[in-house]
């Protein structure tokens, strides 16, 4: 016979959700791990609904049918963005869809921890709670970089830099829940790189046809800083005819455009910290989020910080799930007496 405590846990499903600007992920205590691109689309009219065959589409599928849909990316720039009623609805739909992906049993109670971009917590925390509460029995909302730190057991003397699409969130961990002074958000993030790359390509290839979605895909596939031993070529139509374009310089320039603010804010965050522990922080800098996948970014940051003494910058092993896994761990570690009142 199982102990009483364990029996009680059997009816509970803990989920950790990373509600990101670009991608959202879920990890659950039944072992399911899924992610989607944070896009929600509703058919524009009856005909569009017939064509796509669904009343609401998510992620890559929504992007694929974007011409027939009212498409919403709700957490652009880290906050629920304009589009307003539809973006609040979109957050709700994403949560519902992610929870469905976790495959809870019909009578299972769900306890969820949701990680959101740090800036989102400031003005949208109640809206996010409202969007999630319909689908879970108990809920806690935390900042994304904090969830990552918790999941990686980086509770003391660590600096987490979560490079997302809309924002780069900095979070210093020093043995307590991070206060506002321990966190900072800047907006030169993945979307900014997309914009830069788009502009550079328009400038270099004015007769070629491409859109922002294609540019984002180029970035995700080829992004790097410093130098790489590879040629980057893509196929773009010119007057309807596919033509090979060389875009290596443009990719590098656009990726490097976020570095000055990144370095400056990192040094500012370290300098703010108690001088006695600054060396420890410098040797425990963790890059997370999709932006951490930019090739050589960790080495660049490490070298840029050299003049402030030795430092070590590493990257999380699974940027896609680090936030959701951390949120799940928080959910599982949370004493049941705390869940009862939420």
């Amino acid at each position, binding site marked *: 016979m199982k102990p009483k405590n364990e029996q009680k846990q059997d009816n509970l499903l803990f989920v950790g959700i990373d509600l990101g600007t670009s991608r959202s992920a879920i990890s659950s205590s039944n072992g399911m791990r899924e992610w989607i691109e944070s896009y929600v689309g509703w058919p524009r009219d009856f005909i569009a609904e017939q064509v796509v065959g669904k009343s609401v589409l998510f992620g890559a599928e929504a992007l694929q049918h974007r011409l027939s849909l009212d498409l919403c990316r709700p957490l652009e720039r880290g906050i629920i*963005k304009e589009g307003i009623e539809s973006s609040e609805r979109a957050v709700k739909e994403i949560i519902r869809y992610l929870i469905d992906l976790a495959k809870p049993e019909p009578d299972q109670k769900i306890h969820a921890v949701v990680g959101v971009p740090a800036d989102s917590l400031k003005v949208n925390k109640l809206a996010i709670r*409202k969007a999630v509460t319909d689908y879970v029995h108990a809920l806690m909302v935390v900042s994304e970089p904090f969830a990552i730190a918790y999941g990686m057991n980086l509770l003391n003397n660590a600096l987490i830099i979560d490079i997302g699409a809309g924002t780069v969130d900095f979070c210093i961990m020093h043995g307590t829940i991070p206060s506002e002074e321990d966190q900072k958000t800047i907006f030169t993030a993945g979307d900014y790189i997309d914009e830069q790359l788009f502009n550079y390509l328009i400038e270099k290839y004015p007769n070629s046809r491409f859109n922002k979605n294609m540019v984002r895909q180029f970035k995700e596939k080829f992004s790097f800083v410093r130098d790489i031993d590879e040629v980057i070529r893509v196929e773009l139509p010119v007057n309807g005819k596919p033509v090979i374009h060389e875009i290596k310089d443009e990719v590098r320039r656009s990726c490097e455009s976020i570095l000055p603010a990144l370095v400056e804010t990192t040094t500012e965050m370290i300098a703010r910290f108690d001088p006695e522990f600054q060396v420890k922080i410098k040797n425990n800098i963790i890059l997370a989020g999709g932006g951490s996948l930019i090739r050589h970014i960790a080495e660049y940051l490490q070298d840029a910080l050299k003049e402030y003494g030795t430092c070590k910058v590493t990257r999380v092993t699974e940027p896609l799930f680090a936030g959701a896994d951390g949120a799940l761990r928080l959910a599982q570690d949370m004493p049941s007496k705390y869940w009862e009142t939420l």
Partner: protein
Amino acid sequence: MIPILARKNDLRIRQNILRGVYEENLLMLGRGHPALSRHRPFPLKKILLYAVVCLFAILMHGQYEGTSFSPSETPANIGTYRLSPPTAGVSWEGTANTFEFSDFVNSGNLPLSHMFGLKIRTIMIDAGHGGADSGSIGKMGTKEKDITLDIAKRLKTHLVKTSRSHVLMTREDDSSVPLHKRVALTQEAKADLFISIHLNYLPRKPTNIIETYYFGPSNDEKTLRLAKQENAGSEYGLSDFKEVMEKLGKTMKLQESKEFAKSIQANLFLNSRKHSEDIQNYGVKRAPFVVLLGVDVPAVLAEVSCLSNDEEERELSSETHRENIASYLTAGILDYLNKGAITYEAKK
């Protein structure tokens, strides 16, 4: 032995963190520590500055009565009054001014900017508070500085789309910008219009109110108290102050500010009323806000909502509500800019 101690320490840290997460979430639900309230740094220097502002304001009151302000115009009233939609040719706040220049500039009920063909090339939006200065804090932990910044950004987006003016902000992130710096930024940018966005906080009243201020003397206790709070962090020296006080003679600024304030208040209140019957109109008021004194162009400070009201704090967490407020402010600005030409409806 050492690994056991380290593990115990780790466990203790983890427990503290989990408790912290729990308490923060409890606070979001309005079930946290009720002790949270306004927190404003208030050093002696600022008390002195406030005293000087009040003294100047009271001493110069008589001069205003005879010059730029109408005799019948009352300073801020604590009482509430209902507002009817403004009609052409009828002053919202009081009767026409009495001195000759006023008669001249008010003829035709046109803003001076129109009369002299002046253009509003640059609009400066000032999101109240920021950085270490959170402004007021609601029971659920909502901070005034975050809401004002969000609304200011939305207002900028609207204005960029709808007006032909260049739109700037005194702060675009959660940074601390002293009041004198905000004034300096406005002057450096050669802004033609200035709007400062704030939230009210009335802990003893369960009401939700909207009010708009422009610079001027006031003998109303509540207004002076509010000015004291909003002026904290000005970092002006007394010598700077003498110089900026001389700017009070600029009739154009005062009259335009009043017109501007009326337009903002009317749009904010009338549109907000469509969504909430309980909202109260505290009208257009004069108050000695340092930030309004410092800039020499039409300038207003709008208290666009009330964070001490629980229902309103919940509403402010919804982007729809913040977006609505931004659109009402936009309508107010456009109405002011186009007075006599077009009346803008606040649209979602």
